[in-house]
């Protein structure tokens, strides 16, 4: 899922200054799960904004709402009225959602309340970590199901660097060296020989370096 993190309140404040009717719109999917942009967070943020404005002696009208997914136009229809009636929409969806909103309502000011951080998973309640960099060319079959692109600080393909110490990455002792994990796992799977194969130079074309990516499935298109 996509993991997001709410922007600093000061930044949000600045962003919305001048707008007196705001729709705070959450997204009940990925970012809700990462406790950044679900209905719960919408309520909290809305309350803070109201209080902030009140202390500044300014009026503000806030509408709180959330869509099931902001990244699908269909879900955005349901909030049409609300969008129409506000000066700006503060979206708590990921960047995709924000842009979908902007596309669906081209005349509206759409503001991002989150920084979209990574694709990852919930390690445990309250802890999320990155797992996939969306490179477009998956090699997990060769690395025991652990991705060196997303999880090696240096993005190395052929084993750890010299900074790997006691299984930890040299950038921080809190970060596991993914290559250590890969080796451990392949050892356990008795597939260590897979590492004897040298990775060829990776094709980064599919990773976005070749421009905005698009996928078309002819069989599904109308």
């Amino acid at each position, binding site marked *: 899922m996509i993991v997001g993190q709410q922007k600093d309140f000061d930044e949000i404040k600045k962003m919305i200054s001048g707008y007196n009717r705001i729709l705070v719109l959450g997204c009940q*999917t990925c970012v*809700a*799960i990462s406790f950044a942009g*679900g209905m*719960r967070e919408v309520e909290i943020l809305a309350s803070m904004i109201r209080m902030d404005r009140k202390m500044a002696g300014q009026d503000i009208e806030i509408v709180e709402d959330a869509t099931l997914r902001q990244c699908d136009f269909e879900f955005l229809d349901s909030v049409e009225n609300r969008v129409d009636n506000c000066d700006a929409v503060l979206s708590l969806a990921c960047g995709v959602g924000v842009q979908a909103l902007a596309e669906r309502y081209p005349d509206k000011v759409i503001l991002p309340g989150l920084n979209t951080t990574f694709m990852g998973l919930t390690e445990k309640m309250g802890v999320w970590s990155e797992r996939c960099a969306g490179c477009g060319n998956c090699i997990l079959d060769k690395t025991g199901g652990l991705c060196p692109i997303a999880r090696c600080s240096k993005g190395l393909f052929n084993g750890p660097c010299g900074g790997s110490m006691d299984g930890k990455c040299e950038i921080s002792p809190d970060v596991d060296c993914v290559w250590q994990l890969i080796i451990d796992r392949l050892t356990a799977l008795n597939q260590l020989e897979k590492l004897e194969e040298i990775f060829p130079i990776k094709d980064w074309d599919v990773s976005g370096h070749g421009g905005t990516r698009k996928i078309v499935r002819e069989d599904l298109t109308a």
Partner: protein
Amino acid sequence: MFSKVGSVLVIGGGIAGIQASLDLADSGYFVYLIEKASFIGGKTAQLDKTYPLNDCSFCIRSDKHMECISHTNIKILTLSEVKDIKGSSGDFEATIIQHPRYVDIDKCTNCGLCAERCPEEVNDEFNEGLGKRKVIYLEFPEAAPNSYVIDRKNCLHFTEAGCNICKEACMEKAIDFDQKEQNISLNVGSIIFAAGFDSIIPPYYDYDKLPNVITSMEFERIHSLNGPYGGHLVRPSDRKEPSNIAWLQCIGSRDIYHNYCSSVCCMYAIKQAILARRSNKMLNATIFFMDMRVCGKDHERYYNHAKNEDNIRFVRSKVHNVFPVSGTDDLLIRYADEQGNIYEEIFNMVVLSLGLEPSHDAVRLAGNLGITLDKNNFVETSSFTPVNTSIPGIYVCGAFNAPKDISESITEASAAACASSLNAVSKVALPEPFEVTEQKPVPAGLIIGGGVTGMVSGLCLADQGYKVYLVEKTNKLGGHALKLRKTFKGEDVKSYIKELIDKVENHPLIDVCLNSEVKHTDGYAGNFSTRIAISSSTETKNIKHGVTIISTGADFLRTSEYLYGKNSRVLIWFHTDKILSEEPNTIEKANTWVFILCVGSREPERPYCSKICCSSALRNAMELKKLNPDMEIYVLYRDMRTYGLIEDLYTEARDKGIVFIRYKLDGKPEVEEDQDGKLMVRVKDNLLGEDLIIQPDFVTLQTAIVPGNNENLAKLFKLPVDQDGFLKEAHKKFKPVEFTAKGIYFAGLVHSPKPIDEAISQAQAAAAKAVTVLSREYISTNTEVASIDLKLCVACLTCARICPAGALIINGMGKPYIEPQKCFGCGICAVECPVKAISLEHFNNDLILTECEAFL
């Protein structure tokens, strides 16, 4: 045939009476609960905190009070006494006198205006006379029933005719001076005496003259937040904080007038010392004691903690005198240490740890009814029927049976509920469960473990008409009790077990599965399903049952100390039992016998007391003496823990001339053998400061009780295990036979070491709890259960991750589901749900929000 009556009379509204009432009421019986005072709760209500958790006593018990007050199957009669009881089991006729309260409970709103205006002040008994209260008063703010009461004896309306101040003050017109004493006649099927205890009046120590010599109950009141000094630990004479306090143990216990141990004083004194030290870090707390009797679950650990972490000083010496120190309110204590050195020390305050006497009123009533009492006026019961009095249909529980603490009283109360329910057959309607699902509970119980405990639980359930599956790992019923000869009271265990096995095997509703083990279990209270494997075959058996009782018992330590296993004359306790039954010649030839206690117990790697070793050693020692009066018997002990009425055995053993020598953990006895293989025991005599060398024919080791394979069990049933490896109950004090998970109970040594009578009462208690589930028309759910709006749910799993009850599961469809039987309605999931899809039935988010919004 007479017709049995479906209601039960419970005499005494203390914690035991309340528990017995609740269990009976929950099983569908109608209960009359008779209480002498104006409120229920008894002595427990006066306590501040309870050991060993130092829990606020009120917090936990108040639930029980409220439950009891509001239960539709319980009729509480406060200010009432039983005048007479006629009839017999199944059909008793009880005459009750109810004294007027002069305040209408339904009208009184506790505004307190009446008391504010009342001109007359008297000593407050609830605060042990340390404070004053008005004549119209509420015993304590949380008293249940929560209504004022008039103390007629001191009320000016009655004494000086005509004072109507309170009546005029009351806005609700709740005061009614015309209320009259009422005679109430009740027809009940059985009766439970839960009359509790009275504290012994301190006989000496100048208690009446020295204000800073206080009783333990006074200490409880002083330390209580709702007590006379607002919870500030100050001494009565000058309201100053004491900087050193002495606790004197065995006041009114273990003496010629009360030659029994009151069981609870060691623990409560430690608790009080800990609390005192918490309220004043600089305070010196000293406990003067004879034997530290902390035998219950986790009690030893509590003691060790008090000694090592809380810096409480323990002095092994009985103190008989307290002298005033002239010019101060301080007190001087003179005591002798074991070496005979005499010391004098000054304390700011002295607490007398008072013992327990059976309730005087109850003794009188029981005497009139012809119930057999023992020489100390406790009700005489057998180890095998620990809650039955000498009169069929009349049962006893709590401190009127023998001195005991809250958790044991609660256990026994449930046991009494179980036993008495067999006498009162017809049931009344149960209150409607809050939410009715269509399912009925499966009318069957699964009992794991075929020892005495399991068999007793099984019979209790089967006798009430439920199917019982009794699963036993070995090839026969009986468990470790098969190795025992006699109880501490001297009853024959062997014939009891034989009888028990007969009953179990021939009971049409009991299905005994020998050589069997549980492989898998699933479900919830009222509807479990369990797979059982029989070791001899590959066959498995699936059982549906409404409740589970775990009674897998415990094991004993196979020690390597004291030459055990190397010399055949070094025995473990049950070998002694065996020799006693089978080898009288050996005994006749033996001149000297040594018992070593605490083998493997109360040591750093096993910091708990095995509870039964002292009594079993003494019982066997007495038997040996009986067969060979000339035999010299030495008992090497650390603390003689013959708690409660077992003290008798200790007295008797000393009378018979058995020699007791105390050893310390750092000076354990040494057992050696000489060239001829003869045994030699060397032990340091603390009093004389010299080594004593004994040449016994036999040495019996009282080895520790150790937990069985509870880890597996815990995993299988998802149950908590404590630090020592025994199963951990939901609450040490107030839920002694339950787990947090409903529908699954335990009994016996799987929970902690205990003697046979306590195991049996626990077995009955577990059965009583089980019946409260089985007897329901429908599987009941909790009153407040969270619910999920699946339309909103995004299956983020947050709820499943945080639910403390484990009630939230995500089904195969990726949708969360709340098991209503498990959910206890805490609302944590509702507040954490990122998409706000969860709400609490009676307590939804909007309600709180509305309240939070209502500020301007």
